[in-house]
């Protein structure tokens, strides 16, 4: 197995009594766009800072490119960071900002020139080399920060919520640019954000953290369609949940008895045992509304609808299942408020979460 770009092994980080990160095991593969997401205070920024070297793990070990980084100061790590506030040096122009790391590495003048020009071109800021940071817009400053980090050809590029200060349109543009950039340059990116959509649109894999614990790591699809816990399910989207109990395993499906409804088939993670308490997860877009109630089927009445343009959100109440949310296409007739509709979903669209995790 090749060395991971970043290998975090049984890392815990304490600040006095506060445990910011606990029992973290994570591998970031070379060349991938990896994101860590989670709510404020979940430990994602702390983790990033530990990889960069600004914090040391209380216990555990972090390796970069196979080399143990314990005790190694930030200025000796093959890692560079793009800071949330950009942290551009105000007294230096763009050229000198980008060249900073190269100068510290005592790179020769000619090479500095070439590499800085390259980096500046990469972020499309040619012609602004003599400008001071305060003369640049937020988006431009952000790109200088990016160039400044990339010019050093780090093994891993760390990005700490770099797009937070930008407005929506700029943010979406930058997301596309970052993704293309990462693909073309091939450097491992480790990206931290609280914005799930942002992470999903750019990343190869995503890690979800909560209160210092790693909840799940996987591709965006895996995380969305096969969440490991209720927390993850809610963090990346809305979900309808029904309590139930596993009754058996059939081929690659589970048989579940859903409270109030009866036996259904669903998918789930491996290893669930008969009798285990579970939650059945059905995403709103997979909840099908029928005009009439089919035989043996479920019904609910419409509480409210909201038209969002491409979609329509429908809030429902079912006597057996409680509050539900469904998403329908924006076109077509909206269901009438108060009307009774039939509910169904495909078996493949139901996913099981162990109920023990429900408390998270």
């Amino acid at each position, binding site marked *: 197995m090749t060395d991971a770009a970043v290998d975090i092994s049984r890392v815990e980080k304490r600040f006095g009594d506060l445990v910011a990160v606990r029992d973290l095991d994570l591998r970031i593969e070379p060349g991938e766009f990896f994101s860590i997401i989670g709510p404020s205070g979940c430990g994602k920024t702390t983790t990033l800072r530990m990889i960069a070297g600004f914090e040391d793990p209380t216990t555990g070990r972090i390796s970069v490119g196979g080399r143990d980084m*314990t*005790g*190694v*100061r930030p200025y000796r790590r093959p890692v560079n960071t793009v800071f949330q506030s950009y942290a551009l040096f105000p007294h230096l122009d763009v050229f000198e900002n980008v060249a900073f790391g190269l100068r510290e590495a005592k790179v020769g003048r000619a090479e500095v020139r070439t590499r800085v020009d390259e980096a500046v071109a990469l972020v499309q800021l040619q012609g602004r080399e003599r400008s001071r940071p305060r003369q640049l817009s937020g988006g431009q400053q952000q790109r200088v920060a990016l160039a400044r980090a990339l010019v050093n050809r780090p093994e891993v590029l760390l990005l700490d919520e770099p797009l937070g200060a930008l407005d929506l349109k700029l943010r979406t543009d930058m997301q596309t640019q970052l993704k293309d950039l990462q693909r073309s340059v091939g450097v491992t990116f480790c990206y931290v954000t609280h914005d799930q959509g942002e992470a999903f649109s750019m990343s190869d894999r995503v890690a979800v953290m909560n209160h210092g614990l790693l909840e799940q790591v996987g591709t965006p699809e895996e995380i969305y369609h096969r969440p490991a816990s209720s927390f993850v399910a809610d963090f990346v989207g809305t979900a309808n949940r029904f309590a139930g109990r596993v009754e058996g395993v059939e081929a690659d499906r589970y048989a579940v008895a859903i409270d109030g409804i009866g036996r259904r088939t669903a998918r789930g993670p491996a290893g669930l045992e008969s009798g285990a308490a579970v939650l059945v997860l059905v995403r709103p877009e997979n909840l099908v509304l029928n005009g009439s109630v089919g035989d043996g089927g479920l019904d609910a009445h419409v509480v409210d609808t909201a038209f969002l343009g491409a979609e329509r959100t429908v809030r429902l109440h079912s006597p057996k299942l409680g509050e539900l949310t469904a998403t329908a296409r924006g076109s077509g007739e909206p269901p009438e408020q108060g009307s009774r509709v039939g509910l169904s979903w495909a078996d493949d669209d139901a996913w099981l979460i162990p109920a023990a995790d429900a408390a998270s």
Partner: protein
Amino acid sequence: MDRDQGGVAIERVAAPPPAAPRRRRIDTGRFARLGLLAPTLAITLVCFIVPLGLIALYSFGSVNQVDFNVYFGWTTGNYRAFTSSLYLNTLARSVILSVSTTLACAVIGFTFAYFISRQSPRAQRLLLVAVIVPFWTSFIVRTYSWVDLLQNLGPIDRFARALGMNGHIDILYTQWSIGIGILYSYLPLMILPIYVSLERIDPALFDAAEDLGATPWRQFRRVVLPMAVPGLIAGIIIVGVPALGEYVIPEILGGGKTLMAGNILADQFLQTGNYPFGSALAVSIMVVLMVLLFTLRRAQPAADPQ
């Protein structure tokens, strides 16, 4: 946190047990940080705290009348000397003069600061410069110029006589000239903190007050005044405390006749040689100041947000 700025970097290539390097790095970091604090410690402890402590100690000492040696022995004689009418009068007058001048300074300063705060930003800057530039000129020269101005036959005297006054103004070398001198020197110091407080007031507050039925005077009383209090108190501290210990102004504008606490204090050390008494005086001044500071600080509403 775990980073040391200015400390010696310890590189680790192999992976040692986690505890060892961490402990060593913290020690080096702390050591370096203390090194950074050393100059400040030297100047504050050695040259500020210790001398003051020494003075406090010797305020309980006495002077041998025969050989003029100062020796230390616990006596409160120096403090009791204050009760003698000679010193008590002077000191009391000194305090009254400082206090009244500070109050005058506060009223005038507040009016000026209020006026500035009601101007356009450009006009504000201009006015501030106009107030501060005199402050940048030599203190002693400014004070001396008042000798010229206030003396009989000087411009103010002639101006007053032209207005019909009989006799001379006879201001120079009295309490009044000292008061004017103190007012003059400290006015900018009073204006600035008050202005800073006033400038912070969101103009929308006036609109809000007006909307709720407050007349201009009521707006002033209920919006401006309360919000200016922190700046006012800061100004009173910055002016009142040094004013109590003024030396130069009474020297020049008091003509050696009217003495304040600062002059008496200097006298003890530079001429009379009665160090213990001087020390007692110094300690008393400090005590008065601390009481003043304490009461003023209590009166100050919650610290203004930075």
